[in-house]
């Protein structure tokens, strides 16, 4: 697979992650408002998911090939499944969480963990594996790490801007959640195929 396809996948991972945060804020606001405490919980949840996902992905990249392969399938399945839950039952779940907690802050935390933590953590497991992929293809680890995280962060920026200025003003949030699911399926399918054999120059 050409190098450009690899980086396109990495950029798309970045778009999926941070664009999802902007969608998340729109999902939460009817139930919990959009005050600063809501944003604090939302951002912290995403950062915690990035953190855990990166550590888990780093560990997975060191597994032997068969276990690694199954672990990659498991992470991809977790991402699909959790994005599907958010798209199909997200609003209903938020409604239950909202009335289930008398403390707004606790409700927001539970809602963020329930809807956003798993998909973002699952997507984040693939960044270290992309670094591993480059390393296997002969790219120096430091350089590979810098490239993957740099390109992925560019994707994060694109995700925030695209979602905020193009998608949210023109499409329903519920529609966009299904778009996220579809793009995640396509992107992770391509990435899983890519990670099977390193064939970069």
């Amino acid at each position, binding site marked *: 697979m050409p190098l450009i396809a690899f980086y396109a996948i990495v950029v798309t991972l970045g778009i999926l992650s941070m664009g999802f945060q902007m969608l998340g804020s*729109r999902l939460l606001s009817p139930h919990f408002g959009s005050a600063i405490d809501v944003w604090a919980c939302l951002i912290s949840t995403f950062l915690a998911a990035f953190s855990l996902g990166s550590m888990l992905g780093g560990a997975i990249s060191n597994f032997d090939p068969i276990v690694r392969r199954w672990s990659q399938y498991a992470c991809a399945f977790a991402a699909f499944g959790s994005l599907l839950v958010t798209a199909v039952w997200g609003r209903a779940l938020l409604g239950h969480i909202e009335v289930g907690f008398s403390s707004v802050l606790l409700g927001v935390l539970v809602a963020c963990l329930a809807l956003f933590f798993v998909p973002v953590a699952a997507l984040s497991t693939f960044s270290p594996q992309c670094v591993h992929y480059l390393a296997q293809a002969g790219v120096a680890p430091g350089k590979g790490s810098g490239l993957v995280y740099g390109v992925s962060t560019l994707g994060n920026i694109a995700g925030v801007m695209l979602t905020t200025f193009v998608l949210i003003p023109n499409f329903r949030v519920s529609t966009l959640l299904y778009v996220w699911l579809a793009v995640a399926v396509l992107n992770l399918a391509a990435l899983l195929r890519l990670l099977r054999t390193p064939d970069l120059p």
Partner: protein
Amino acid sequence: MKMLQCVLGLSVATAVLAGADAGNYVESYDTIYNSLTIERNGSVVELRARSRRGEALESAVDLNDPLKLMVAYTRSLYAGVFFQPKPARVLMIGLGGAGFHRLFSAAYPDALLQSVELDPKVLELCETRLAFKPTAKTPVALTDGRMFVKRDKTQWDWIILDAFRGGFVPPHLKTEEYYRECAARLSDRGVFISNLHSGTELFHSDIKTIKTVFPQVVLFETAGRGNVIACAVKYRTPDMTKPENWGSVENSVAQVLAGRLDLVAIKEELMEIPAKQVAKARLLTDDFSPVEFLDAMKTNNTGPK
């Protein structure tokens, strides 16, 4: 450390004494939700919110005559009396500078006027600079306006929506679902009153969304600043779009309002619903509410000072 304290101190409050007249001041506050300026000039104190397009006058009070309504649109909010002349319980979402409150409390001393404000600094400034003290009849809840409506089960005679943050209206306070939540908290003969800004795409979407929930909507255009007050009720008869069906206030209330509120002038602010534009406008829902992009600030009460 001293440098940090200095920077923090400056960011929290910058006070500049005008010096020329004793007691005059201009103070700026960057709160977690707003950039506020409060200015005293003689007996008049103004509260303004800064935004990317300038400063919007939020509220003002004449300390020598606190009942005087200094900001034009706060007079128009009283159009609510035409639809429910005897409000016993009023919910105001967005405290602002409490410009509305003093006259209301004088006219309806037995009524409950519950305010909801997100920004604690706004309440503090009302108490310390704008001569407003919350009482048992005028309590203030520091929370999100939507959270309050969802969790409080009171039936209100008036619900006034006048919530802005840095010049923009929070999107979740503009949706069909939120208006339905407000309608559910409105007494049978109650009125929902909303401060809208004309001259924006948001204006037509606002009206369309309010009309989707409330069968009758009447608009009052405040002269000069682009504010339009929407009054909406959830009953179909009598036809409240006809002024001859509007209620009249009791003599005791009218006496308090006299000289400070010209109800005849407010009646003359009645405006037609721009039906063509409203028909083309997009409905705002929890699923689709690009409020920021519909340009809420375009003709907010921002203007040259």
